[in-house]
């Protein structure tokens, strides 16, 4: 068992002690159990993962050939312009896959299927 000494805001500490005793009782170790639970949940959540922006890559295809590759749409547009290629003639694909189905939510109410 590891031992960690840490500093907590007074109000948070008060809340933690109150909740721990309410959930796990006043027995010794209740505070550690509550902190263990909280840390386990935090480690399982997205909040504990570093948020690195994944660079999306674009490719412009003419037929099967890649004519321009770029990190952004603006860069792709510039590349096509430099090569004198009409953007209407290429198929733009992204490294981020196109979802097979988008959920549209409650604001979209269609008349027909």
């Amino acid at each position, binding site marked *: 068992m590891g031992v960690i000494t840490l500093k907590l805001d007074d109000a948070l500490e008060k809340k933690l002690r109150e909740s721990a005793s309410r959930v796990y009782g006043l027995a010794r170790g209740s505070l550690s159990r509550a902190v263990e639970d909280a840390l386990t949940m935090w480690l399982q959540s997205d909040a504990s993962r570093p*948020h690195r922006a994944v660079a999306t890559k674009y490719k412009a295809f003419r037929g099967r050939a890649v004519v321009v590759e770029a990190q952004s749409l603006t860069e792709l547009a510039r590349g096509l312009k430099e090569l004198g290629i009409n953007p*209407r003639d290429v198929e*733009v694909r*992204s490294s981020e896959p196109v979802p097979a*189905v*988008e959920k549209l*939510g409650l604001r979209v109410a269609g008349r027909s299927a």
Partner: protein
Amino acid sequence: MKTLAWGFTDDSLLIPIRLSNPLLETEYPIDGRVMAALDTGYTGFVLIPPMIFRALKLDELKPITTKGQMADGRSIRLLAAYGILRIPELPFEDEGLIETNPEIKEILLGMKAMRRLKTTVDGCRKLVMAETC
């Protein structure tokens, strides 16, 4: 980091945006901003009415098609093309698939548009606040 707040309008979470199609050098609106509704029920990036899709000339690019599933389980065909979303006041810019269908009557920002934004809804003060991550 800049945080901006906008009041609720008509009980919708509306924020002012601009859209662009860098491939054909088009912008919508031509001047100013257009209000878009934040919709956490929409899993995509940006959903727009066909009229705006055409104004951006996204219909002139090679089409990408996908399927949209409505809340009642029915599906509609979505036509899509890559474009840029901007919230000039923040400033914020992101790229993604801009989708349309004749059923769409308003501009919706979905979960993919919100992935690089910290958005807070303050129901007590009727405010929606946004800042970049």
